[in-house]
């Protein structure tokens, strides 16, 4: 892994995770009227730490296409919300999901901002002005 990779890696993983969360929460909002639907989410901190450690080589790696994929190496661990089910067994609370979605969108932009400053820093270092 080159030094450019390693300096950007954390922010890139954070961005990916936030995009995944946006997708999950959008699914929750879309399914707010689906009977028996359980609200889904990922825990950012645990997922982030898991990805960071697997990228750093701490986890199993596939060195041949014949190898089995290590359990859950790519896909995130999705958690289901079981409490607060209404009469139809749906656990989506629309207001809560909307707040989560907005919060996540802001956090995504924060990550973008950080990534941009990193790139700017790298450019500056390369130019040496």
């Amino acid at each position, binding site marked *: 892994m080159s030094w450019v990779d390693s300096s950007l890696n954390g922010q890139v993983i954070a*961005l*990916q995770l936030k*995009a*995944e969360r*946006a*997708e*999950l929460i*959008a*699914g*929750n*909002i*879309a*399914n*707010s*009227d*689906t*009977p028996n*639907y359980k609200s*889904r989410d990922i825990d950012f901190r645990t997922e982030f730490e898991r990805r960071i450690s697997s990228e750093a080589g701490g986890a199993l790696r596939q060195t041949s296409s014949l190898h089995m994929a290590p359990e859950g190496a*790519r*896909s*995130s661990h*999705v958690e289901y919300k079981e409490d607060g089910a209404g009469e139809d067994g749906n656990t989506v609370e*629309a207001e809560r999901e*909307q707040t989560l*979605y*907005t919060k996540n*969108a802001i956090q*995504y*932009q924060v990550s*973008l901002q950080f*990534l*941009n400053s990193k*790139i*700017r820093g790298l*450019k500056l270092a390369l130019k040496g002005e």
Partner: protein
Amino acid sequence: MSLESVFGVGQSALTAQTYRLNVIAENLANAEVAAGSPEEAYKGQYPVFKSVFSEIDGSMAMKVAVDGTVSDERAPRSSYEPGNPIADANGFVYKSNVNSVQEMASMMEASRSYQTNIEVMNTAKDLLMRTLTIGQQ
């Protein structure tokens, strides 16, 4: 990039809510239709949604789809109208079991849901547009 699948999810929700609005319009339109027997009276229809999981592109998105409609099996409203040509032997006609107030509330819910999903897609669009300009400033 998984932000793109937000559009797929949002679009599925828009389709589902549109379907729901259609069914509600149908119910409201037929609310006052009279029939000569309880069996012939219009029965309120209710859409049932289901979630669809497609893992084709490795996305974890849960889309929504219409599973079908169920009809309201409550008894129709009977109304005494002996002058009505389709009234039965006792002078009754039978009107739908649609509760207009309930339908109106359901309609507002559907339209709110629609708006929310559009908002979700707009936010995803903004985020993607910003992502495209990474490293340009």
